[in-house]
């Protein structure tokens, strides 16, 4: 009880991070259904690294060129710019002589290396960057909670307004194109939604939980053989559960927050996997 009493007494400490985690978890769980079904799981991993690179570039610009990038919204703006551009480029890149995965893998490994090099050069902010990469939802300032809320609302609005078009072009782009739909435009809108969501969520949760929450809650929901509409809702719920449950578990067990969220998300996959295993 003393643990719980201590937790409740520290409400001001966890209130904003928990709310931001819940928003990020639900949003990533929802978007993850598209990510998994469009078979672009590793695109999301690459985008997470690309957005982190955007942050590194912003910090470099501040240090070397004395460009204003101290505030969270400046850094997040850079990360979002990089992520949206990366999503559009990876979405549009259709190499003829190479599988598309080669480009995604190259983007991931090159940006990962650049982030590591950036961290090595930006020694004074390496702790912050470490939080971005490995997850640190312990402290979320009100400004970032607001940004998270706005991004979640924007993603919800995009998918509520254009859900039927996004579903059609994701499921069968060939037919959509043949019927005169501007598939590139709808793909760009989808890329915009994940390009906004990933950096905002990575800022709150870290890169590793973002990748996990874009994959595991959706997989858990889809294993239950639900139709797409219910699967989107259940995946959002699973994402919220994994983020909040992971946060609370990490508080009480004093474990790293991001990794605990990933473990919580992985646990949610087990019932569906067992159900499928039984046929």
């Amino acid at each position, binding site marked *: 009880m003393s643990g719980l009493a201590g937790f409740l007494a520290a409400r001001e400490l966890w209130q904003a991070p928990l709310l931001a985690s819940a928003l990020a978890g639900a949003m990533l769980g929802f978007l993850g259904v598209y990510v998994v079904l469009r078979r672009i799981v590793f695109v999301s991993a690459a985008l997470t690294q690309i957005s982190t690179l955007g942050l590194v570039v912003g910090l470099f610009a501040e240090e070397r060129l004395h460009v204003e990038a101290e505030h969270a919204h400046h850094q997040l703006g850079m990360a979002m710019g990089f992520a949206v551009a990366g999503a559009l480029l990876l979405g549009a890149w259709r190499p003829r002589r190479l599988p598309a995965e080669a480009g995604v893998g190259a983007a991931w490994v090159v940006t990962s290396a650049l982030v590591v090099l950036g961290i090595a050069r930006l020694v004074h902010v390496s702790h912050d960057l470490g939080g971005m990469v490995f997850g640190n939802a312990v402290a979320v300032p009100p400004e970032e909670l607001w940004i998270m809320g706005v991004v979640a609302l924007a993603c919800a609005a995009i998918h509520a307004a254009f859900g039927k078009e996004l579903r059609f072009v994701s499921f069968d782009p060939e037919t959509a194109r043949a019927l005169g*739909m501007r598939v590139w435009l709808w793909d760009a809108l989808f890329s915009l939604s994940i390009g906004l969501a990933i950096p905002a969520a990575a800022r709150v949760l870290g890169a590793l939980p973002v990748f996990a929450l874009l994959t595991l809650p959706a997989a858990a929901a889809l294993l239950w053989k639900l139709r797409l509409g219910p699967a989107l809702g259940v995946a959002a719920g699973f994402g919220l559960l994994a983020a909040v449950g992971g946060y609370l578990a990490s508080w009480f067990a004093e474990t790293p927050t991001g990794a605990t969220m990933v473990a919580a998300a992985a646990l949610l996959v087990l019932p569906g996997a067992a159900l499928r295993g039984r046929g």
Partner: protein
Amino acid sequence: MRSAAELPGGGPVLMALRRAAVGYGKKALLREVELEVRAGDFLALVGPNGGGKTTVLRALLGALPLLGGAREQAGPVRVGYVPQRDHVDAVWPFTAGEVAAMGRTPGLGPLRRPGPADRAAVERALQRVGMAELHGRPYAELSGGQRQRTLIARALAAEPELLAVDEPTNGMDPAAELSTMEVLRELHGGGGLAVVMVSHRLDAVVSHARTLGFVDRERALFRVGPAEEMLRPGALAALYGREVEVREEAGRRVVLPVARGGGA
């Protein structure tokens, strides 16, 4: 080769390619393509895999920019498109009814949700292809033939004037192939619907098509004309590079290669 104006089909020209160069990027696979589709026609584009049939179809529909020549269309034409079945990813958890309902999406436009008229059109489309009772079944759990009929229903849900079908019988057993072709023949026979079908097997379409187009980019072949004319030995030899004959057996046409120095 007959000129475009002489082609059969009955109704007015819906879409046409005039001296078109078709291909991807800057590389033309076929040049000087003359093709028109009239209301009520049943046109089959036949040729080997990779021969450029689907490319011609996409160019005809305006989904692929031309590298030369012109595309003509008689005002707005409602098109239904049926892709190759294995191009549609069955991992998506849609029911047959939800897949069919997508046919209404382009016509509805953004921000509008399907209403009673849309749902009725989808229901009619599913009934026309015999899938009404399976509308709630997951697409992934349907057989190949049922998936094909679902995709045809999706195309019909748009209430098209032109139905474009890409290799609908690919990978099907003979019974499912016959069933699919009968669905297409009934749809075509039911009114002024124009059907444009792509197939790498002449057998599959020879009993149904009114107009045939032979397409093979390797031989720089694009030849189109009435079925009776295209089934003559000279035209068939241009497609197959050897002597081929068409026989009538039990009311159906069968394509048979003629053995070198002997009969079929």
